């Protein structure tokens, strides 16, 4: 079937802000689909609320709407755009659920819009666990013994029948949300009530445990003619019990015989047929008992998923693109394989390499949260690596995590660290072998398949060989083939890393760069998608490129503080570098991203973004220079090494970057430029800190010198706090990594400024005003452009000062400044000589090609050669608000109070013609409920009470009722505001937390400070998270929430494209 001509305009739904379980893999799939459909001549309307994505770049689709992914907004967009079809299968669970809602509300029918890829019935058959179970039985597949629980009492009955442990899977939730494993009745009671609450249908599937079974995933595709292909088989190293998103996985599967595998494949095909998937991608998870070989189906997703992105990168088969083409009528045999350019897409990729995916976690960000893995996903990002053998791939994957200079650094062995799955388990497994444990012993404790354990034991065995023998060239080559870094080998030999490098250089022990070609070498292919391996000798010493090459360093696995925003800048800049005549080498290890799509750059190197790995790629590609300022902090950190190896950095020089990061020299520059600096000091010992604290005056922000995302950064308000800070973090403080102490500017207004500077010109891209006051990490605070409170004159002053600073530092390319404004004085908080998190937001809020200009600035082009480099960012009719999304729900003991350490995973954007409307949209997109009526609970610290009095009055005026604990309630009553008094937690029951849990409270305003007060009010915030009650913890945020509520009461739904 050729493509359908009855379709002209198609809506693609994105997945909204990045959350755990739904990250930038859907940016990748959506972007790919948009490009494919545009190329086929369709008009594509993209809707997504996430400004950090590439898909919301105006050049990706015919029209881009950054609007809330809510039925009422979609209805307006449909009304205006009059599309013939909508694709709900590319934007994760969010898009799928939205598609389902649009169908149920009759909106699709009303406007005659067809759902492509999957319809409501199909979605239900796969997503509704009861229906899905019936379907499994009908095709002869097995599932685990399970019962759909609809209320608490029924849940208790089921537990009695089944015994423990039990697995809980709430219906229709994302990333296993609200689910988990219960080992005891007590744990079960708590989890079942939460799960019932989490499920939109109040249903939890309670399942007998299959802990310890082998887990597999098949990524499949089907076209309208029924042609079925398995794109990739994935095997989890972690057996059942760990969410697949948190598991270390390999592709293709390694431990099933062909017959076992083919039976699984048959079953997958039957399921896809029975669910009724007409066209597109799907994934099916299986578990296999290692002893009996019994196989059960865990679940199925009738859509492109996280693992589809992984499978696409692992095989070179562009699942999302093909899914999009299938949805408009093409068949698999009618689409050419992009990589070979000669064969069709109805094949199953053959791999002659092994792919490993490792998750990256952020437990250190959430105090009090146990580092344990279960069926609810907790990882914030992932790295993928490709190697010719499992050992090479596995070692490289851990290097890609960028947490150490070797794959498996030594750890102090603790047995419970291999018994209970946790974020560091792989390191402890390796250590267990180092301690002499046997494969059998470890198997009995972990149920990780023998094959994987044997492979890991070989890694440790080689470590011992290296330790005890002369490092011959042969041995060195073997170590490299096992994926050992030079640093690792040097540590084993107790020599300097440079010695290992010299030996490699002297004997030309270099990696070869091999192609990912979908066919294991069977057909010729030109696609420049490479990975390194020491298993082959190089055929040619250097990459042959007709054009001069620039190497772009990506940002590696997503983490809190470094995510899709940097991928946006990288991807957008590729196009501009190409326009400037360069061929772009892209280096990254993150399978979720658009930057690692093989057709984004001229040459893709899917490799760790580490000093050794990047240096080898530069040695091979011989670029004119490398670009480090677009991929966040990761590339910046390795730049000094790369420069020391003789490679040229493009844009700002190392010296310029040093100047910005060297507190002392930087302070001096700031002083000469009329930037104010908060009193500060750098100390090594607690004694010094005590002395300096007197000088600086509390409150003080303390942090180690080298941090990302505000890690270990805290506001210290007293001597007592300071002592506690050193108790907890003192061990990372050293002469090399001093503790920075800085006076905290209370109640100051904070802004982000992003600018680019080229040869003789500087352009301010925008100023984002933070909604919360100084003290909340810039990544966690909401922001608005254009600023709403900043005086015009101060704005002008900021622009002028920023430009002067860029000049003085001799910046070429991007510069990000974080400034605080108090009493019209501009304080310098921090300068980042690179692109920042706020760049994509600014680019979209101003609708200007800011990144393109940044690239020209990096290339030091003079202004006369540049078009459009002197626009005014303030020249916009639209107000844009950045919202933030937090993962607290996933971490059962995490506190939602905001501070200087970043905790958010994603951002949203609200665009409108006025501030209130934009605010409201950004709250909606950040998954806040905006209650129309109900009871508001307030618990305020003393200094906020006066400040928030007008707010309380407004709430009453708007028809809400108020309740508060005694102090706040008395205060409000004193000011003639009606307020019910409720008990504090320690005052007995029912108390305020009980009220939140029972659903009587629709909104909580809880401001607090000081460690004790924060701890005392923890239960309030935690119950809000657990029961999805909006909870505002900062006074300015409360004001803005009020504005949003007021706007919401008007009931207007406005939309506008970028």
């Amino acid at each position, binding site marked *: 079937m050729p493509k359908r001509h009855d379709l002209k305009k198609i809506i693609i739904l994105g997945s909204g802000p990045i959350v755990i379980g739904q990250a930038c893999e859907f940016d990748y799939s959506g972007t790919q689909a948009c490009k494919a459909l545009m190329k086929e001549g369709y008009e594509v309307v993209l809707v997504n609320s996430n400004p950090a994505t590439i898909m919301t770049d105006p050049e990706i689709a015919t029209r881009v709407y950054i609007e809330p992914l809510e039925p009422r907004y979609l209805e307006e967009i449909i009304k205006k755009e009059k599309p013939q079809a909508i694709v709900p299968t590319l934007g994760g669970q969010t898009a799928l659920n939205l598609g389902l809602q649009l169908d149920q509300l009759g909106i699709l029918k009303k406007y005659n819009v067809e759902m492509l890829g999957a319809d409501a019935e199909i979605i239900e058959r796969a997503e509704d666990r009861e229906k899905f179970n019936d379907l499994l039985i009908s095709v002869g597949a097995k599932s685990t013994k399970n019962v759909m629980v609809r209320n608490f009492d029924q849940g208790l009955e089921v537990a009695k029948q089944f015994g423990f442990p039990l697995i809980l899977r709430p219906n229709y939730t994302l990333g296993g949300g609200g689910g988990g494993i219960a080992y005891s009745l007590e744990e079960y009671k708590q989890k079942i009530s939460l799960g019932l609450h989490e499920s939109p249908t109040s249903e939890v599937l309670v399942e007998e445990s299959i802990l310890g079974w082998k887990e597999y995933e098949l990524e499949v595709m089907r076209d309208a003619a029924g*042609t079925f292909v398995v794109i990739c088989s994935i095997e989890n190293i972690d057996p059942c019990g760990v969410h697949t998103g948190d598991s270390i996985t390999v592709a293709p599967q390694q431990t099933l015989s062909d017959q076992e595998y083919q039976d699984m494949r048959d079953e997958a095909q039957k399921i896809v047929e029975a669910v009724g998937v007409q066209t597109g991608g799907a994934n099916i998870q299986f578990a296999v008992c290692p002893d009996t070989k019994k196989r059960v189906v865990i679940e199925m997703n009738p859509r492109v998923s996280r693992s589809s992105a992984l499978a696409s990168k692992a095989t070179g088969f562009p699942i999302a693109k093909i899914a999009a083409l299938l949805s408009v009528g093409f068949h698999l045999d009618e689409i050419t394989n992009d990589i070979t350019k000669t064969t069709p897409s109805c094949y199953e990729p053959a791999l002659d390499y092994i792919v490993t995916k490792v998750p990256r976690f952020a437990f250190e960000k959430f105090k009090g949260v146990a580092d344990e893995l279960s069926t609810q996903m907790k990882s914030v990002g992932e790295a993928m690596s490709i190697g010719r053998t499992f050992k090479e791939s596995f070692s490289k994957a851990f290097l890609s995590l960028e947490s150490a200079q070797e794959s498996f650094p030594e750890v102090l062995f603790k047995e419970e660290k291999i018994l209970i799955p946790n974020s560091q388990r792989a390191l402890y497994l390796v250590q267990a072998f180092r301690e002499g444990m046997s*494969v059998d012993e470890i198997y009995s404790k972990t149920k990780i398949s023998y094959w994987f354990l044997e492979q890991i034991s070989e890694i440790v065995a080689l470590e011992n060989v290296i330790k005890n023998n002369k490092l011959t060239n042969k041995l060195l080559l073997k170590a490299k083939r096992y994926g050992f870094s030079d640093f690792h080998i040097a540590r084993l030999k107790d020599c300097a890393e440079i010695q290992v490098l010299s030996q490699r250089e002297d004997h030309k022990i270099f990696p070869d760069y091999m192609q990912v070609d979908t066919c294991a070498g069977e057909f010729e292919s030109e696609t420049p998608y490479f990975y390194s391996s020491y298993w082959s000798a190089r055929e040619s010493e250097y990459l042959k490129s007709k054009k001069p090459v620039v190497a772009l360093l990506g940002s590696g696995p997503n983490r809190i503080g470094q995510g899709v925003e940097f991928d946006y800048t990288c991807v957008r800049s590729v196009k501009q570098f190409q326009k400037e005549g360069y061929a772009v080498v892209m280096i990254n290890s993150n399978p979720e991203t658009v930057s690692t799509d093989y057709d984004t750059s001229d040459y893709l190197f899917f490799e760790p973004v580490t000093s050794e790995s990047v240096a080898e790629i530069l040695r091979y590609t011989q670029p004119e220079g490398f670009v480090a300022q677009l991929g966040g902090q990761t590339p910046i950190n390795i730049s000094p090494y790369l420069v020391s190896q003789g490679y040229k950095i493009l844009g700002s020089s190392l010296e310029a970057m040093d100047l910005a990061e060297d507190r002392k020299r930087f302070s001096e520059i700031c002083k000469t430029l009329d930037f104010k600096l908060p009193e500060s000091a750098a100390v090594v010992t607690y004694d010094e800190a005590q002395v300096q604290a007197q000088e600086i005056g509390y409150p003080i922000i303390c942090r180690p010198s080298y941090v990302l995302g505000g890690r270990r950064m805290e506001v210290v308000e007293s001597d007592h706090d300071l002592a506690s800070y050193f108790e907890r973090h003192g061990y990372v403080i050293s002469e090399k990594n001093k503790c920075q102490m800085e006076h905290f500017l209370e109640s100051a207004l904070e802004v982000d400024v992003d600018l680019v500077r080229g040869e003789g010109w500087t352009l301010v891209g925008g100023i984002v005003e933070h909604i919360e006051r100084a003290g909340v990490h810039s990544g966690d605070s909401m922001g608005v452009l254009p600023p709403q409170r900043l005086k015009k004159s101060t704005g002008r002053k900021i622009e002028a000062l920023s430009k002067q600073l860029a000049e003085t530092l001799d910046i070429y390319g991007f510069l990000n400044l974080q400034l605080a404004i108090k009493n019209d004085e501009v304080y310098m908080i921090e300068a980042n000589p690179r692109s920042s998190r706020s760049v994509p937001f600014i680019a979209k809020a101003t609708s200007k090609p800011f990144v393109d200009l940044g690239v020209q600035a990096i290339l030091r082009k003079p202004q006369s050669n540049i078009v459009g480099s002197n626009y005014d960012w303030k020249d916009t009719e639209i107000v844009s608000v950045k919202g933030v999304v937090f993962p607290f729900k996933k971490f059962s003991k995490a506190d939602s109070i905001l501070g200087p350490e970043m905790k958010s995973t994603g951002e949203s954007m609200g665009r409108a013609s006025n501030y209130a409307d934009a605010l409201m949209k950004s709250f909606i997109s950040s998954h806040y409920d905006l209650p129309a009526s109900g009871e508001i609970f307030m618990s305020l610290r003393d200094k906020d009470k006066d400040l928030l009095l007008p707010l309380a009055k407004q709430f009453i005026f708007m028809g809400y009722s108020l309740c508060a604990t005694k102090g706040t309630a008395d205060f409000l009553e004193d000011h003639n505001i009606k307020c019910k008094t409720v008990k504090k937690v320690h005052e007995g029951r029912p108390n305020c937390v009980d009220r939140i849990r029972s659903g009587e409270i629709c909104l909580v305003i809880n401001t607090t400070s000081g460690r004790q007060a924060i701890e005392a009010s923890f239960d309030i915030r935690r119950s809000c998270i657990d029961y999805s009650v909006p909870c505002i913890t900062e006074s300015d945020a409360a004001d803005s929430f009020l504005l949003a509520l007021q706007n919401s009461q008007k009931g207007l739904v406005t939309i506008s494209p970028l």
Partner: protein
Amino acid sequence: MSYLVLESGEVFEGQWHGIKGGDSAGEVVFNTSHSGYEEIATDPSYYSQIVVMTAPMQGNYGVSKEFWESEKIWIKGFVCLELQDTKRESGWKDLLQKSGVPAMDEVDTRRLVKTLRSKGTVWGAMVSAETQEEAIARAKLLIIKEQQKDKDWCYATTTKDVQILKGKKTSGPRVAVIDLGCKKNIVRELLDTSSEVGVFPSRVSAQEIMNFKPDGVMLSNGPGDPKDVQKTVETVKSLLGKVYIMGICMGHHILALALGGQTYKLKFGHRGSNHPIRDELLKKVYVSSQNHGYAVDQKSLPEGIDVTHWNINDNTVAGLKSAAQKCFSVQYHPESHPGPHEARELFTYFMSELN
């Protein structure tokens, strides 16, 4: 040291896992299946061939007699990047050793495959030797010796005696299999739906087949150049039109030759579990299991013979049918093992034509 020496001059080093002095020569071919090493090694179609697996890790899940496709290991050598070698699961390596089949790993199989892809299928030898020169010299002799063997490879692998096997369905048809190097799973598939299956040697006469009173004849897979197979084409010519015939792989070539068509050698063949087929008989497109070095020339086929199956990677003929002569055949393996099962329906189709 150990070497894989190609006739075309390239030499690949590796780690020897075979028995001492177990040097051997054969046609060097590569297979892209991810799993199924044991099925492949016991498939008689690999007679006189050194098999290079593109999947790097081999021997991962051990061995089991239930995967065997015949009574012995036929391959002349096994080459891969890393052969599983641990105390617990060295089954595959041990089995190769016990069977006297040389194995090599740590071979740069990627470059080897690219060489085979550009040079076409070449002969080669696996040799353990002190020096590369010595290896090359020894390899030359080994290759010559191997090439001097009788060219009718099907005859080398076929059953020596007629075997009569009871089928599972007493009311089902009787099927005669002409064993050209038959995989067990073809017989297994037939037994499921027939009353009796007779397996005959490759040089069987038409009369012997007709004496069995078959409702259908299956021409099996087998190794080598179809034009070197003696007698079978004549036998099939005599059977044409008298009894319904299905051919698989070598059987497909033999049928094409009997129908008056021609076969030719492919540059490097198709060996793997991922080749797409457009099947106009079953009216679908699916992925198939393949293992062949020759193909039927479409232009050579006389009138009345329809090409019903296409390999859509390179548009070679993958199956044909003649309604008048009551026969059809496919180039690939509906019996799978290894590989996907979707073409299994062709057995059903065959059986339905018999009733």
